[in-house]
């Protein structure tokens, strides 16, 4: 009877070996989990930067064309832009700010983009004489230059990942024209 009992159960060595195997299998899993937590934290910061960048650029684009001058706004020094438009006042806060313990720095660069419009012009008298024959409307292409009617808005948000000393940045760019609203 004693012999039979001994052979039916698992030996201590067997159980120890099985546990050691399982423990060794868990090591890479824990490693992957650690990496994924770091990646999630990184992604979280990136998403926050993207949202911040979008929010600020949207706000900047709401300002009337002449309200934001050409140049650099924000960056390492905090700056608040204000506009008292007919629709109401708008504020845009630029520079360093801390969100959930992470410091983000936003900077808006506004530059003028000179534009050359290619305009096909026609002769109104020729058109009046032959309204159904567009080929005879006296077409000619004109190139007309403009400055200070089209601005480029580049908004950059910089931050640092946990344990990293290099700056990360996210940039969004758009243009705004001096149009009658």
């Amino acid at each position, binding site marked *: 009877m004693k012999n039979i009992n001994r052979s039916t159960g698992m030996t201590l060595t067997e*159980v120890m070996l099985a546990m050691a195997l399982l423990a060794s*299998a868990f090591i890479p899993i824990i490693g992957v989990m650690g990496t994924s937590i770091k990646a999630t934290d990184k992604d979280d910061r990136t998403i926050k930067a993207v949202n911040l960048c979008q929010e600020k650029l949207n706000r900047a684009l709401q300002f009337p064309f002449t309200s934001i001058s050409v140049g650099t706004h924000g960056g390492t020094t905090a700056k608040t832009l204000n506009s008292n438009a007919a629709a109401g006042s708008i504020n845009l806060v630029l520079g360093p700010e801390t969100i959930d313990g992470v410091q983000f720095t936003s900077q808006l660069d506004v530059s003028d983009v000179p534009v050359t419009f290619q305009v096909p012009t026609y002769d109104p008298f020729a058109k009046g004489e032959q309204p159904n024959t567009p080929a005879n409307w006296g077409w000619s292409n004109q190139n007309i230059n403009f400055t200070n009617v089209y601005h480029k808005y580049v908004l950059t948000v910089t931050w640092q990942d946990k344990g990293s000393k290099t700056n990360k940045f996210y940039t969004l760019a758009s243009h705004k024209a001096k149009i009658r609203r």
Partner: protein
Amino acid sequence: MKNNSNRRGVALLLALVFAVVLLQMAIAYSSMTRGSKPQTVQIDERIKLDYLAHGLTELALLKFQLYPADFYACWEAAKKGQPQHLRSFTINAPEFTINNFTESNSSFNAVPINIQLASMAILTNDKWKTEALFIQAGAAYTDQYGRNIAKEAVRLVSLERKLNK
């Protein structure tokens, strides 16, 4: 007795199988997280394209506001079988093509973006006797995997024709 002795090492075998399954899960999870990153980047880049395309519709609207009579003449000529002037005013005008725009790069993705006006047209509603200017612009880039990522922005502005006194 024979059956009992056969059961020896079952725990070890089970542990081995379980360990292999766990390892496979870890490998699958790791490859999944690696694959999700390009997706995140792609979503971010679509936002950039949207802003740039929208910026070009601003320029198109400005041109229309500056030269409405010329645009209407081009539109009328296109309706009468001469579309080249309208193309020259809109999609073929050099100011409506921006190639290799790199100023909206990010630290995790730097790609040159091409922006182009797609169309400018007058939409009419005969019932309500109203007109609207339809402007469509697109922005696109080729990502690091060779995929073409594109986004279009559309702008609709109601028009009111007035005689200059």
